[in-house]
């Protein structure tokens, strides 16, 4: 696959650096001037920066539609040391432009939503000055994600990779002084960053191996020579890269950061932890298709990890009570589906699900944010001058909600659409993308298909549970009964995303292989998947069973109080405890990794650093002091001592001279 330099082709490609520069201008503008301008201007600038990035992406897509040949646009020389030559090049090919469209498109919608959401959120949390800072970070994230997807070599991709990790940290810990014991959000941000770091370590090792074997970081060089590479080197590269992917895309065993990342504001969860950043891992594997297709053993490992994660996370989502945590585990589960797809070689199926998932998951998160805002406004509503209102209830706990479809109708309908798309009901988008993955799995192994079908069943079940608990029945708390619908600026992006969740299925619906054809020029190794009717029918049946089960357990009787025991715990008994605590993986990691590390750090700090090293330094200083006091006694002021010293010295000199 060859790549054209931009000079030889359509000059419109020269515009591509603006996908980064325009949001960067947004960052600088808001950083320097934002605090002196009104919230309206700040939000407007941020949304315009993101929207203009989207416009440029559309122009790129347009140009590529006429001629799908990949194009490289050179921006500047970066590193030139010895054998290492890395430039900052932009790669405009169908895969990267697809990602650019998703990131900037969904990103712009979420920016618009955030201008409204953060307006309320900073008032609920009590610090109105944080508004500007939020949009600086948000635009910065767009910059970093664009760097990641537009990179033409692995090193630039890594720069973007790290950049989104940083923005994730900044945004998760946005309310850094809040959270449990005033530290919870900061700890969640730290956990996200550290776990990502473990993954980045793997990715770095993969990069080192790539440079060592291929001599270059450029995608073209690597992909063209991948098939001839030594299998052991290929195994090393792909396995370490997989470690990075599990870190960024929250797969087993590095999934633990994503549920905690829900401590960030809801737009953050929507943009970063649903639609864009976590999909970077899927994008990386799709980009490295040539490498993975050359070593089938590692592909099997990829599939196993993806499938296990899909089932594992779906199980846990069933037992969660926080509205955002359900969606977090759902994200992990759906990412597992995508990883399975790219592991099977069905890269376009994986990308298809990435696109549809971005739509409906962002929709679900944003709608959940709307619900939370409604709960908070309900709580503020009845927190009139009542001094005897003791504690505020958690606005994110589903057990405190109920019956919201009457108070928040728009939110209810879009949430329902998003939920059904997630579950995979035709003709919504999720059905087509998930079905492609199931077909690809089925043609490989029935066991794999079985696992994925189990995950699909659980997906339908937990989303039904969530919709029923939140929107149906009678309100289980004061706040729920006082909840109000959110303003237009919040509901407008929801509606757009709902429409997209409905119609996006035509991208690759059976008989219409738009996406397959689109991606063919970027990923020639792509395995296209044929629509298999039996699998579609079986999956539909399973989905309906899940929905029905959810309806029977949660929908028929209304739960009058929030402390009623979840009927699931009655059914599953002790298993429910495991689901609720996410199988205690966090506790396991804490005991195995974190505690010993803390003990080691304490040992090094106190025993070695404080006692030993400081002891040596202070002891040296004290020794100098003592010896100087000792020598100071030589100056006792007595003349006779001085004369004696002179005399003895003279004697010694004479003795020396005599005996020489």
């Amino acid at each position, binding site marked *: 696959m060859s790549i054209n330099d931009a000079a030889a082709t359509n000059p419109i490609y020269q515009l591509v650096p603006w996908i980064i520069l325009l949001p960067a201008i947004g960052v600088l503008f808001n950083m320097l001037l934002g605090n002196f301008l009104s919230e309206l201007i700040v939000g407007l600038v941020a949304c315009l920066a993101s929207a203009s990035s989207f416009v440029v992406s559309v122009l790129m897509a347009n140009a590529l539609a006429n001629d799908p040949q990949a194009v490289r646009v050179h921006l500047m020389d970066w590193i030139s040391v010895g054998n290492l030559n890395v430039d900052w090049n932009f790669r405009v090919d169908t895969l990267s432009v697809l990602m650019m469209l998703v990131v900037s498109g969904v990103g712009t919608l979420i920016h618009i939503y955030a201008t409204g959401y953060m307006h309320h959120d900073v008032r609920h949390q009590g610090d109105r000055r944080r508004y500007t800072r939020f949009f600086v970070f948000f635009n910065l994230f767009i910059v970093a994600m664009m760097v990641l997807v537009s990179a033409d070599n692995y090193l630039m991709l890594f720069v973007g990779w790290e950049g989104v990790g940083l923005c994730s940290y900044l945004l998760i810990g946005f309310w850094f002084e809040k959270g449990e014991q005033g530290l919870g959000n900061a700890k969640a941000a730290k956990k996200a960053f550290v776990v990502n770091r473990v993954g980045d370590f793997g990715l770095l090792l993969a990069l080192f191996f790539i440079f060592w074997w291929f001599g270059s970081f450029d995608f073209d060089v690597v992909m063209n020579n991948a098939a001839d590479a030594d299998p052991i080197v290929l195994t090393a590269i792909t396995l370490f890269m997989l470690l990075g992917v599990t870190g960024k895309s929250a797969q087993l065993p590095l999934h633990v950061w994503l549920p905690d990342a829900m401590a960030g504001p809801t737009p953050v969860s929507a943009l970063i932890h649903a639609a864009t950043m976590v999909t970077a891992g899927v994008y990386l594997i799709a980009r490295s298709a040539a490498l993975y297709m050359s070593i089938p053993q590692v592909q099997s490992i990829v599939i196993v990890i993806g499938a296990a994660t899909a089932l594992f996370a779906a199980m846990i989502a069933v037992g969660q009570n926080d509205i955002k945590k359900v969606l977090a585990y759902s994200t992990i589960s759906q990412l597992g589906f995508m990883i399975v797809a790219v592991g099977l070689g069905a890269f376009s199926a994986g990308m298809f699900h990435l696109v549809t998932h971005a739509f409906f998951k962002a929709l679900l998160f944003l709608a959940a944010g709307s619900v939370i805002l409604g709960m908070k406004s309900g709580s503020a509503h009845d927190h009139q001058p009542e001094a005897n209102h003791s504690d505020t209830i958690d606005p994110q706990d589903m057990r405190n909600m109920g019956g919201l479809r009457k108070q928040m109708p728009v939110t209810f309908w879009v949430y329902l659409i998003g939920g059904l798309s997630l579950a995979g009901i035709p003709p919504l988008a999720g059905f087509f993308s998930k079905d492609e993955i199931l077909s690809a799995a089925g043609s490989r192994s029935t066991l794999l298909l079985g696992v994925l079908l189990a995950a699909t069943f659980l997906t339908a079940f937990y989303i039904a549970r969530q919709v029923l608990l939140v929107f149906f029945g009678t309100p289980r708390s004061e706040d729920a009964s006082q909840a109000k619908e959110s303003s237009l600026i919040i509901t407008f992006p929801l509606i757009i995303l709902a429409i997209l969740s409905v119609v996006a299925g035509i991208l690759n619906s059976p008989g219409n292989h738009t996406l397959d054809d689109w991606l063919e020029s970027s990923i020639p190794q792509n395995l296209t998947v044929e629509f298999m009717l039996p699998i579609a029918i079986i999956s539909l049946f399973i989905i309906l069973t899940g929905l029905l089960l959810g309806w029977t357990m949660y929908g028929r009787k209304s739960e009058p109080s929030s402390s009623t025991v979840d009927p699931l715990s009655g059914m599953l008994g002790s298993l429910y405890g495991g689901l609720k605590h996410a199988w205690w993986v966090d506790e396991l990691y804490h005991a195995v990794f974190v505690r010993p590390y803390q003990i080691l750090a304490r040992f090094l700090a106190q025993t070695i650093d404080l006692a030993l090293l400081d002891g040596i330094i202070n002891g040296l200083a004290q020794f100098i002091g003592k010896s100087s006091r000792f020598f*100071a006694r030589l*100056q*006792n*002021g*007595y*003349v*006779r001592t001085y*004369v*004696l010293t002179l*005399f003895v010295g003279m004697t010694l000199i004479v003795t020396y001279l005599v005996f020489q």
Partner: protein
Amino acid sequence: MPLSFYLGLSLIMFVLGALGVLLRHNAIVIFMSLELMFNAANLAFIAFSAYHQVVTGQLFVFFVMAVAASEVAVGLALIVVIFRTKRTINIDQLNTLKG
């Protein structure tokens, strides 16, 4: 009379004078011991001068005597001045340079 006898005598006088400087703590007696040391040096000069039959040594002794005299004058004047302030000439009392 071997030269070394005279030089040995000079050496003993010198050491005795040095011991006097070191061991006595009356400032005037220290000065006197200093004069003894000068004398020892003079003796050595005279002995060498007689050995080589040259007059230079004796002339040097002449100069040494003159300088010793002037030095004694100034030194004793200093002792008098110190005595005026400290009312003692025990040099162990003159220890204000201690550090």
